[in-house]
């Protein structure tokens, strides 16, 4: 069968568009994903689904908020949905992401303290910490991305930071 040049062109265009998105936003999407699912392999799956969904629904991006915020919102939804599916599949908490002993064992002491502190936070609080501390977003932007009220963002952030300071206290300079 002869190759359809039009279809090939579409593939190349899609490939380039997604490649650019991954270059610019991949690590940020991964950070948010791993903060929610607490498993590197799952976080990569979430990132993959995020970019595929973004590409398929690119017509719905209105350009009001920065592209990264739109992608973070998709990533959050995909990650939460992934976590929910896992919880439904495995009621045993030890089988959930974050319970992998080998991940903790392979890290140094400080990293372990941070991991422990993160594991004590709920997924929403972890997301808020990442968006604020790593991505430097405002409270309002975080509220829009995660779909939660401003007071919730602030309350969760302050309490999460206190938990991180307390549990991972020895990391303090």
């Amino acid at each position, binding site marked *: 069968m002869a190759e359809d040049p039009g*279809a090939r062109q579409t*593939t190349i265009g*899609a490939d380039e568009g997604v490649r650019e998105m991954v270059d610019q936003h991949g690590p940020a999407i991964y950070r948010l994903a*791993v903060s929610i699912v607490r498993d*590197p392999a799952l976080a990569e799956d979430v990132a993959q689904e995020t970019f595929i969904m973004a590409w398929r629904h690119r017509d719905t991006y209105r350009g009001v908020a920065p592209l990264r915020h739109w992608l973070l919102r998709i990533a959050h939804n995909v990650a939460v949905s992934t976590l929910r599916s896992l919880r439904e599949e495995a009621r045993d908490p030890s089988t959930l992401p974050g319970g992998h002993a080998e991940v903790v064992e392979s890290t140094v002491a400080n990293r372990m303290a941070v991991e422990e502190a993160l594991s004590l936070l709920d997924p929403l609080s972890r997301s808020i910490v990442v968006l604020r501390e790593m991505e430097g977003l405002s409270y309002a932007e975080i509220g829009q991305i995660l779909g939660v009220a401003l007071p919730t963002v602030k309350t969760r952030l*302050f309490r999460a930071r206190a938990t*991180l*300071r307390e549990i991972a206290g020895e*990391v303090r300079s």
Partner: protein
Amino acid sequence: MSRGHPSDAQLARWAEAGKGKRAASHAIHCLLCERRLETITELAPRLREQLAASLEPPGTFEQRLQERLSQRLLDHETIALVTDLVDVGPETTRLLLEARERDEDDE
């Protein structure tokens, strides 16, 4: 602290132990106290670095992701193309392509 504003100790107690919800409720709506809470709970630079390190993707993440996405997009385009040409549904196309791949593997 002046009347109406909770003390640093009250704000810290709420952040660390969840005690003193009235102080928190005030702080969330008072810009001055919100800033004090930000300072009280601020992460030390070293802790922030460790947090960033624990969330950083593996070195090969972007390359792996690019490859997986390229393959997914190619699959998507192939299914769309065959669906158009053969005039069957996407699921039928997917089954046909999977069957062909299995045959190739068997050979």
